[in-house]
């Protein structure tokens, strides 16, 4: 081997060791990426397969096709997985089709292969579709006229534009569902559930090599969560009593401060705050705001305020901003006239949009609209300080960690993160890097809001004027 070849081989090996080689394109039989997060002490294996196409790919006039396909796959999957004591669940989003399997470790490999063949080969007969379609039609008839459903459609139209495919109802409507025949879901599956485009994440008591034997594709091992609390000096192994003198570890009568004190491991001082970069953070979903009122003779008003953010905004920071806005706007206990509120960060044309939605008494709608809109400016000018900021960040962290404590939520989250960001963030590190200043900076980066009011226009106007000083 020539010296030049030696250098080339050595360089490739070095790059491979550093994980810097460009990802190898997946073949038709391979997934785009396989993520493995071993949890040796876990008792169930969760595997999520995320395909990057959702209900916005439903054929025109056959809205609800992806939804029906999901229900068909779940029902057939439940039947086929019975002997593996496993469960299947499918979520259909605007731009994703997420299949999640939960299986005991002894049978997960067989269960995964069952799901794989189900997703790739299942072609339902009309007799299999009919009962599912009829049951769904019954639900749609029951829900017909529900104002919250109409509000959700109006909100998506506000965000995406009224003619955008993603603004159509994910569950379809009576006309479109009646028009779906067995060939429809099969065609959707053939056209959109491509193995080479899917990201798979497997979490649980499995090893990387065990996954490699079952799931084909380039793999990345995601390390299990670290312990962030440093132990005091003693390190017991599996034992019936502590080594050494037990009294040195535990004195039941001693006050708390006399015991060995755990210490928290924090990110290094050099870690920069999680923030939105100024100027070069990319385009936004829109550059000018608007306000629209949809007049409906209802006893409640639904309000939605949506702010566009630069494309490169850290998603976790926006999630925290949304939670902070919720805490600023909604008092505990709730004020009269307030019924419910929710905050979500959605993707619009590849950029993030923070959406605050609330349900209120129509007579107070004007006041709540003002409060929601003003809240963003308030956080930008004067974000929670000191203990208020610290406690808010802890609440955010706990909600996130507890939600991701189940293996199926974790696998779904890993697959989504990788598919949309290209990596899986270190939550511990990123949450510590959220500072008061970066929160204020995120709020200041909000673009002009789009506002939707859905309710009795005359009543909102009458009482809105009375509220005006």
């Amino acid at each position, binding site marked *: 081997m020539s010296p030049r070849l030696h250098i080339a081989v050595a360089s490739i090996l070095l790059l491979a060791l550093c994980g810097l080689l460009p990802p190898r394109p997946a073949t038709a039989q391979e997934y785009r990426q396989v993520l493995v997060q071993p949890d040796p002490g876990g008792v169930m294996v969760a595997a999520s397969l995320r395909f990057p196409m959702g209900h916005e790919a439903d054929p025109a006039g056959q809205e609800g096709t992806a939804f029906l396909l999901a229900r068909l796959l779940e029902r057939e999957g439940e039947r086929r997985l019975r002997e593996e004591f496993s469960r299947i669940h499918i979520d259909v989003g605007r731009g994703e089709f997420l299949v999640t399997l939960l299986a005991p470790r002894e049978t997960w490999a067989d269960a995964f292969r069952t799901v794989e063949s189900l997703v790739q080969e299942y072609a339902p007969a009309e007799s299999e579709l009919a009962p599912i379609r009829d049951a769904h039609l019954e639900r749609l008839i029951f829900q017909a006229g529900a104002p919250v459903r109409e509000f959700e459609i109006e909100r998506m139209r506000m965000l995406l534009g009224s003619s955008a495919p993603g603004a159509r109802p994910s569950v379809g409507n009576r006309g479109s569902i009646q028009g779906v025949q067995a060939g429809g879901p099969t065609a959707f599956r053939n056209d959109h559930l491509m193995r080479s485009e899917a990201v798979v994440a497997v979490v649980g008591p499995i090893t990387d090599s065990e996954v490699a034997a079952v799931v084909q594709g380039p793999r990345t091992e995601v390390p299990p969560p670290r312990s962030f609390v440093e132990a005091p000096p003693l390190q017991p192994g599996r034992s019936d009593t502590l080594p050494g003198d*037990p009294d040195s570890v535990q004195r*039941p009568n001693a006050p708390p401060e006399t015991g060995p004190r755990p210490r928290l491991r924090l990110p290094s001082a050099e870690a920069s705050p999680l923030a939105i970069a100024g100027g070069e953070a990319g385009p936004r979903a829109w550059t000018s705001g608007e306000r629209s009122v949809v007049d409906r003779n209802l006893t409640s008003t639904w309000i939605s305020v949506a702010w566009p953010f630069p494309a490169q905004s850290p998603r976790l920071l926006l999630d925290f901003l949304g939670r902070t806005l919720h805490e600023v706007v909604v008092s505990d206990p709730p004020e009269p006239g307030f019924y419910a509120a929710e905050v979500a960060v959605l993707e619009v044309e590849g950029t993030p949009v923070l959406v605050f939605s609330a349900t209120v008494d129509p007579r107070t709608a004007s006041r709540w609209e003002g409060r929601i809109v003003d809240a963003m400016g308030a956080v930008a000018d004067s974000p929670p300080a000191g203990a208020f900021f610290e406690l808010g960040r802890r609440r955010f962290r706990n909600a996130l960690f507890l939600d991701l404590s189940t293996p199926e939520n974790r696998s779904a989250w890993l697959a989504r993160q990788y598919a949309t960001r290209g990596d899986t963030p270190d939550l511990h590190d990123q949450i510590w890097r959220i500072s008061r200043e970066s929160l204020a900076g995120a709020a200041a980066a909000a673009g002009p809001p789009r506002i939707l009011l859905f309710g009795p226009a005359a009543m909102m106007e009458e009482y809105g004027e009375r509220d005006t000083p």
Partner: protein
Amino acid sequence: MASSDVVQDFRPDTIIRVPGGPTLAHFETGATEAVVIRVSIPLAESPDEAGVGHFIRHQAEARMLNVTSRIGARSEVHRTSTSLVYQVAGATQDLDFLIWALREGMAPPEAGRHEAARREAQLVLDRRLETPEGTLALRLRRTLAPGEASLQGTTGTLDRLQAGHVMAAWARSHRPSEARVVVVGRIEPVVVLASLTGLGLDPDAPAPQIAPPQDSGESRGAPEVIRRWVAYAYPLDGTRTASALVAARHLSGLIREQQGDYEASVELWDFPRGRALVFSGAAYPRGLQAMTARLTGFLEEAMSELDEDRVSTLTGELLTEFRMTGRTPWGMAELVGQAWDAEGSPDEVDRLMDELTQVGAEDVRTFLAALRGVSPIQEELRP
């Protein structure tokens, strides 16, 4: 699922027993940086102070929630047949807060919150007594375990328990040496143990001696009964067995598969000093004969419908159910802790799962046959 395939899932990674202090079982698992700490304190109640555990629970829960709601962690306190259970769940980085919540929860009861606890306990009991199934269950339990306190209390004891009685029950039970701690999460168990230092009462302090109130035996209201309700209870001896679990599931399955003109159910009951297999049902006159015949001949029916395939399916379902519960850190802590409290070993769930992988149709048949030789305890409610 073949028995040889099953891996031990519920065996603690570490067990630490501290002389004069709590015993801790640690499971190093979890998909995130979350930790769950479950502390159980055995609490036996005398019939004259029945329901006293509820007073402690009510106050503890409010105090813990006051801490955990500030940081978005979870906390709960509940009463099992043997113990009071304090549980917190949150990020490992918030360990100090979680321990603070536990300290708040396990602190002595306060007289100021006593009346609120009484009102809640009375409401729960009244709601139960308003329903035929609640009244029937309470009567059956009294007959099954005479002399044992009803953990929900009675109308008489709930009216008369005073703050001093609650304090006395707390003081005699809340001692460090009595505590069993289950920790689930990626954290060094000694860190938790060290943080728990000083939790509970001084072990040498005498518990206050206060004569319990006399149960006046008064009862408020009675359920409106429009069907005939019957219940048959078969007392079970010894530890929880795989055969009993499989048999109960088999019987429930038979009811689902072949329903009649009546309502029927099968339950496994745990109470402080025993357990029982209970069949119950309700029927209008037209279905009464069929229901009675079904319930009295239920054991024979179950034995005739039993084969290896069915037992294999049932054990697989039970194992999966255990694992579905244990897949979350709080589910794992509760499953292990409950079995530990009931049977005295932190390995109990693992033992039971192991037994489930080996149980066969003949074992379940033997269990059912033994019950057939016992006269069940019977209770009924008539319109």
